[in-house]
């Protein structure tokens, strides 16, 4: 009986991951493609995904604090994140400097430096909330804590950035790190800020042509 329920829980968690992922995939591959400039329609999959995740947290009795919205584990999370972030940043800046493409004012083709923190500070934590606060937690229910669930999170994060090759590679690597850190010290703000900072460093260092304006999904071909 207990084993049956555990199996049901794992299956439910897996389906929750599927249900959350379909929104991202629909937004990238269907809505953006069929509606053209009508970006307001993108709010539909985004809203349904957010409502779904909130209701799921409620059904499972997860508090915002448990998920990682707060300062619990922030220092520990930052301690785990800083060394790899430093190494990767040095490598990226070095490559950018060597290739002559280093420009810390570059952000999605022309926004000012002042626009960077605002966008980054919101976008990074939001993405990491969905990825770690929801998908990672469900992956741990489905596959257990450890390498398998970390790999699943990273693979899904990379899949959401297909077919952009650079972003897919970068998000897979970043996904591995952030998922691993979140499982040891769950804190959305720390991994979100790390996401924002690393995105900025990557955009500032990697040649813009390689990143293809950060386009993902069907829009990549447009």
């Amino acid at each position, binding site marked *: 009986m207990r084993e049956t329920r555990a199996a049901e829980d794992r299956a439910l968690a897996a389906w929750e991951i599927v249900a959350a992922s379909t929104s991202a995939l629909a937004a990238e591959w*269907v809505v953006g493609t069929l509606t053209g400039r009508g970006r307001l329609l993108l709010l539909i999959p985004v809203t349904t995904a957010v409502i779904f995740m909130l209701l799921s947290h409620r059904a499972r*009795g997860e508090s915002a604090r448990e998920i990682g919205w707060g300062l619990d584990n922030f220092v520990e999370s930052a301690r785990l994140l800083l060394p790899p972030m430093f190494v990767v940043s040095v490598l990226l800046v070095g490559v950018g400097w060597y290739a002559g493409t280093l420009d810390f004012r570059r952000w999605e083709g022309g926004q000012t430096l002042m626009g960077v923190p605002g966008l980054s500070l919101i976008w990074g934590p939001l993405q990491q909330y969905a990825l770690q606060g929801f998908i990672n937690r469900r992956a741990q229910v489905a596959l257990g804590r450890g390498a398998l669930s970390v790999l699943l999170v990273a693979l899904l994060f990379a899949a959401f950035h297909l077919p952009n090759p650079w972003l897919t590679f970068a998000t897979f690597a970043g996904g591995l790190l952030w998922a691993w850190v979140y499982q*040891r010290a769950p804190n959305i703000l720390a991994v979100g800020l790390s996401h924002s900072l690393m995105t900025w460093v990557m955009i500032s260092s990697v040649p813009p042509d390689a990143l293809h304006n950060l386009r993902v999904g069907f829009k990549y071909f447009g």
Partner: protein
Amino acid sequence: MTDAARGEQPDTEEGTDEPFLRVPFSADESGRAGRPRKRLAKLIAAKLALDLLLVCGLAVYTYAVTYRTAFEGELEHADAFGVSGWVGGLEGEVAPLELQLFLDGHFVASAVAGEPSQGGRRAFLFRFEQPRYGKHEARVYAVRESRAGARRTLQQVGGPLELK
């Protein structure tokens, strides 16, 4: 720590050296666990159904706005000197109605259809600057604009016709 003990803990991150995640359903063997499970299953089904509705709705909308057949017509004559026929709008009058001629799959010329007759038919005629002798296949397409000109699609008028 056992599952039962884990389930009794109000906040799994408090009082532990190592943070771990709450697994509420497995921790509770009583009948109470069944209710949130069912609620969650319904929630997943509703979410996936909404996604399906969104995708299907967008597909139908796109077909209706962009790809639906909007013209009828026919190529009546095609020879080495030109191609002629008629075209009419199925959704009322479209003025001006742009047509494009393709020979063997390659764009040759564009023209605007004539004024509509009483039956709503508009005649069109493409004249070649140089005679096109030999075996060629002609196809004429009507240009259809949608979303206030943001999208332009070509819809074939009638069937293809070989030059005589």
